[in-house]
């Protein structure tokens, strides 16, 4: 599992590394040139332009060597240092991006964005899963009924719409046609203001409604499919013939048996929600992880990209691990070594 995490990060570095180097080198040469040409005392001490130029070149070379940029990004030394730093959770400083509080430390930036994403996307995921599980159980137990058909068709239709497009429509309808919700999800007042929380929740409502609206159908459909499978099992049929209350069968017997796949999916989607959704955050202008990722990629800010990928992958693997543990708890058959 740890190997998977490191492998993922290696792939990230490999993809971004070369471009990052080019950008950094350009940055260094620009910086050196600016420093030297802005100081007339240095420029005057040279007799010719060529001499001055060669001095600038040597200075640039020295600076790149000092920063360790003279070796290519794939040299074992540089990769080793990067990986070691990641191991001790030192992501270093961002090259371009800064957090809202002005810090350029990657850890600070991540810690600032993560709660916002959790606030929006994890809340949405929880709401989606609760609605989905109950609706799915209901329609799965009454397969073929009106509710079942409605849920299934809603699931199918909603799953083929892109969330961000619905987001655009929602902004168009509820922010501009009927001015109920704000169009931009970022609150305008500073976080120290006491009414900040209320404002944040108000700004959050439009994206939250959109995500939930698009998401719960697919969940309900999944749960329904599990439920239909379980409702055909012998032990449920026996319970039915024994005259056990239908509600009790559905919610305590059938749902418990469907819990396994549901938990796996819940764990995965919860950890997935931490990454936010790049496009949804772009549409709603939500300052979370997704937008951070996009900004970092567009300016090629390697430390931030690595940090964000690390957090995402780590949560993803942790959730797989937790799902495995819960599997053992709910289904003793998969426990080994006993």
């Amino acid at each position, binding site marked *: 599992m740890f190997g998977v995490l490191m492998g993922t990060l290696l792939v990230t570095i490999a993809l971004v590394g070369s471009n990052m180097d080019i950008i950094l080198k350009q940055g260094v040469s620009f910086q050196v040139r600016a420093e030297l040409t802005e100081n007339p005392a240095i420029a005057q001490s040279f007799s010719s332009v060529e001499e001055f130029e060669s001095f600038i070149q040597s200075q640039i070379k020295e600076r790149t060597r000092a920063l360790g940029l003279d070796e290519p990004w794939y040299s074992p030394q540089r990769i080793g240092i990067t990986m070691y730093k990641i191991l001790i959770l030192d992501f270093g400083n961002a090259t371009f991006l800064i957090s809202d509080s002005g810090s350029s430390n990657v850890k600070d930036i991540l810690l600032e964005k993560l709660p916002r994403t959790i606030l929006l996307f994890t809340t949405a995921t929880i709401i989606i899963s609760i609605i989905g599980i109950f609706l799915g159980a209901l329609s799965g137990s009454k397969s073929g009924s009106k509710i079942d058909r409605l849920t299934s068709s809603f699931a199918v239709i909603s799953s083929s719409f892109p969330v961000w497009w619905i987001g655009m429509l929602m902004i168009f309808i509820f922010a501009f046609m009927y001015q109920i919700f704000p169009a931009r999800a970022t609150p305008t007042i500073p976080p120290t203001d006491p009414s900040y929380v209320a404002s944040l929740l108000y700004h959050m409502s439009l994206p939250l409604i959109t995500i939930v609206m698009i998401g719960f159908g697919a969940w309900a459909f999944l749960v329904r499919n599990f439920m239909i499978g379980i409702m055909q099992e012998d032990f449920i049929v026996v319970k039915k013939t024994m005259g056990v209350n239908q509600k009790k069968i559905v919610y305590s017997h059938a749902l418990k048996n469907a819990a396994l796949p549901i938990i796996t999916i819940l764990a995965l989607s919860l950890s997935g929600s931490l990454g936010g959704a790049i496009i949804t955050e772009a549409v709603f202008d939500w300052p979370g992880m997704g937008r951070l990722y996009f900004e970092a990629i*567009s300016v090629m800010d390697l430390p931030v990209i690595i940090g964000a990928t690390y957090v995402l992958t780590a949560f993803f693997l942790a959730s797989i691990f937790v799902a495995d543990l819960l599997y053992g708890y709910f289904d003793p058959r998969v426990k080994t070594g006993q």
Partner: protein
Amino acid sequence: MSVITSDEIKTEFLKSRIGITGIGILASLIATSIVVAIIIPIQTFKEWNNPASWISFPKTTLPAWINLFLSEKIPEHQIIDRPAILPAEAGSISVISNQFTIDFDYDGYPNDFIYEFTARYHGSPLLEIDVFRPDGIKLDLISFSLPYSEEQVLHSERIFSTDESIRKNLFLQQEKYSFDIYGLSSEEIIFSKSSEKHPLRGSYVFAVNLYGVETQNEIIHSKFILGGKVFGLMGTDELRRDLAVGLLWGTPLALFIGLVVSIGSVVMGLLYGVFAGFKGKKTDEAMMRFNDVIYALPALPFLIILAVTISNSIFVMIGFLMIFGWVGIAKVARSMALQIKTKGYVEAAKLMGQKNSRIILRHILPQLLPYAFASIAISVPAAITTEAGLSFLGLGDPTFPTWGHILHDANVYGAAPRGLWWWIVPPGVMIAITGLAFVFIGNALDTIVNPRLKRQ
């Protein structure tokens, strides 16, 4: 796992109403693509991002069918490039007359009108534009001579309704109106009733006459544009592009992207998974760990990184989408292969000394085909929406008018705040319809492949 033959799938599939609907939608989309490829000139597709080729189109206009729902009809944008040509000769003076007939049945004034022409002449011919209105009044708009030239020359010019001399000429004809026309724009004067300031419906004829003393004069190219507020099937966008063209070209592109990505990733996943499952032991272990690494990669961020660093060409993007598409299928294919491997006939084939490749291709893969078809259909919508999403972020291939790219432009030009719904709604609906077709087909196939999902 029971074996399902392809005939069974066919009969079962034809029974499912959802599946038929899906096939129906897909068939109509494919038909649209073919029609588009044949009817709409490929030129429009290549010129999508060239503003010069859209110059005679109006800016952000509503679709024309909106008039069906309105009691007050909005004037439609009209481009007439085939005038009625009436050559006439009066002694030594030659006249070339181009007549543009405009049926004006609207309750609003047009935005403007533009006359565009290219003439070949020598000397200094006189160009005159008159309007014959439905109520019989004739208005002189402009008359001027083209620049003098001894040799034969080609002369191109655009005459705009905002031209000051047109307005002045119209003001001089005040006696034809019973109300004060001073200060009105020329299109308002031309299209107004003579009794009051209200649009006059009917058939207008704009006559362009070129008088010359020589007969060699000719108008090569002649085009009259009435600048309206509605246009075409889907309206136009901020860059004057006809959205119907973009939407129609988006159909074959989306189908191409979706199908190639899903078929490619399913084939890759199947081969990889089956090989890992069949080989077993250490090969299996190593291949599955590699699978895990790809599985743990956050797909969208990586697609963005790849698009930014490597290339955003549409074909490269298809390749990237495949890289992230095969992982889940490989996992399922492996577990299925593990089951099939233990079957007697596979063991027998092994004992007979058949090659591994032959066993995989002949005995294992055919069993997985129904599952493969279902997963191809199911993974198409995801491929289309992911590509649309990337295009929406501005990372798609800018040379192709995909639906995502149209939405990206809509977002950039602030279509939502400005209420330009015809720019936002249709591309998304098209994405959804295409996705829906494949989801329907996939669901129908899925219930056949996994009979447990069937309704009781």
